[in-house]
């Protein structure tokens, strides 16, 4: 296809992506160099019958003018990146200089909002992804062995947790784990502890979110593996059997190697999706004990009086760097394959 025809076909799609994905990334980069204007204060003396009072107020008019003139705020360079609510270099240095043991260092780093979010995001990504693959594989193998009549309904109900909106899905679970809900009450009865609440401790909240993540994504892995299982070569399975391989050995040495490429695909999709975990934190009202990078950005943009564009943009840039690091191995592999083909 000549270049001109190619462009004629692809320009609307390309334009949409450039305008609303590429430019916003640049805009985020630009915004991250600025911070909010300083408040312009005016001192006014109000004199009443009982003497004079000095009052300091924000000059709303002047602030509005200033905002209209420089909407991005004032230039701050890389200051936003290094301040206490982002990379916090000074604080980290101080923590390492003054802390006595590893536990203390860990606790103090967990109090810095950016690192707290980063650690949760990474933990979520790298704990949920393998669990999803393992659970999905087990479900696929088991469902593959049940009578055909049952498979349809099983797949139907399995798709639900994945396709339902994350916020809605997490709310449904959140209401059930409420101490007055069925799972919450059930757990209290099980452990004989009427004060047990999954929302109370950070550890339990983290576990709840991980469980939600596995519940939400396992169906995806299941469906992909299940489709793959239909194409496993029967001949190889049978010759393995003739050679005396047990049931487990057939799964281990025939099925699993055959499905390995699918596992890579699922891992890639899951890494991308889990890295942006966000809605469940809102659904489970978990922000006090678990925040993610996406949640930090959302929170900055939702700040009470005026959105903290600079702070949100700096976190966004750091998140984008994270995404690219995460994708580097995939991009490199694709590049090599593409070169081999051409």
């Amino acid at each position: 296809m000549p270049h001109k025809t190619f462009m004629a076909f692809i320009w609307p799609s390309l334009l949409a992506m450039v305008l609303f994905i590429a430019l916003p990334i640049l805009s985020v980069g630009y915004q991250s160099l600025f911070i909010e204007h300083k408040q312009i204060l005016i001192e006014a003396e109000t004199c009443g019958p009982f003497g004079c009072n000095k009052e300091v107020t924000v000059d709303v008019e002047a602030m509005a003018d200033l905002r209209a003139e420089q909407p991005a705020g004032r230039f701050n360079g890389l200051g936003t990146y290094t301040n206490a609510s982002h990379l916090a270099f000074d604080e980290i240095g101080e923590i390492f200089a003054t802390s006595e043991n590893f536990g203390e260092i860990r606790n103090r780093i967990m109090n810095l909002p950016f690192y707290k979010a980063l650690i949760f995001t990474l933990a979520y990504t790298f704990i949920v992804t393998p669990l999803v693959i393992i659970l999905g594989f087990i479900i696929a193998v088991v469902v593959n062995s049940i009578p055909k009549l049952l498979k349809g309904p099983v797949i139907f109900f399995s798709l639900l947790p994945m396709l339902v909106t994350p916020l809605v899905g997490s709310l449904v679970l959140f209401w059930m784990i409420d101490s007055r809900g069925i799972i919450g009450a059930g757990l209290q009865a099980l452990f004989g502890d009427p004060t047990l609440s999954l929302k109370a401790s950070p550890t339990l909240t983290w576990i709840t979110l991980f469980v939600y993540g596995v519940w939400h994504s396992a169906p995806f892995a299941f469906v992909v593996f299940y489709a793959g299982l239909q194409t496993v070569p029967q001949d190889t399975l049978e010759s393995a059997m003739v050679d005396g391989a047990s049931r487990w050995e057939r799964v281990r040495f025939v099925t699993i190697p055959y499905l390995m490429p699918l596992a890579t695909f699922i891992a890639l999709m899951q890494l991308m999706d889990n890295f942006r975990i966000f809605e469940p934190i809102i659904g489970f009202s978990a922000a006090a004990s678990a925040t993610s990078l996406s949640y930090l950005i959302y929170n900055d943009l939702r700040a009470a009086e005026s959105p903290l564009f600079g702070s949100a943009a700096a976190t966004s840039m750091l998140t984008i760097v994270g995404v690219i690091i995460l994708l580097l191995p995939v991009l490199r592999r694709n590049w090599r394959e593409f070169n081999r083909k051409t």
Partner: protein
Amino acid sequence: MSNLANKKPPSLVALSTVFVLFWLVVAAFPFLWTMWGSFKVEGDFFSRADWMNAITGPVTERQHGGPFTLDGYRGAWIEQEFWRAVLNTGIVVFFTVVISLTLGTLGGYALARSGFKYTFWLLMAALVFRAMPHVTLVSGYLLPFFQMNIWGYLPTTIIVLVAINQPFTLWMLHSFFLSIPKDLDEAAMVDGCTRFQAFRLAIIPVMWPGVVTTGLFSFLLAYNDFTVTSMLLTQENATMIPKINSFLGSTQEEGKVMYAVAAVVSAIVPLFVLILFFQRQIVSGLTAGAVKG
């Protein structure tokens, strides 16, 4: 012949049956429970006394004279004007799907038929764009949108959702068009069609299975979106998911939680119906990327 390989000892059959049943309960029970509970009052759904109350509903019976009540739905849909959010969702989803598919088929077709190196880079860029957390993009939109005075309107949101949808749509339709033989449109071009005519006359008639599958996923993305819609729409223009979230903030008083429960169930039911009718397409769409990638 495969009977031999698939024969199992009874203990294994029992074990797998139990496991499947367990998985079914884990996957489906929360939804069925919440649907059932949405017809109760808060005192039953969140029962301090006994969890059985959520099934039998004694408090509901005392307050409304029957074990079921539509109170939650009435409150959510009429009092809190959830119908408005449903309408907005309908508009946003419809236009997002239609525009995404139009742009996506054209672009995906071009990517599948052009052998130049830049198609690789475009696809890789699309992959990176697909991985971007949406909220990072939103933080890039807000300020420019405020300044251009286009913040808060449905068309703005639709265009943004279309753009966010594009990388995925392009990938999916690209791999679908690769599976349509090149000979088809090339034969049309030998017969004197231009590229566009060949696309219109030879490709469009055979592309519907792929378009329907991709459309389903565009639908899900637009329908399920919370990040973009919650940040870019005003209160009156809010779609269902942000609306549900705003219920949560104002539902501390007795009984209001049930509004949110009813709204959540209202949002789940269309998905239920969707899976019922399109299960085959959804499954094939999920696996399409895997088989080709």
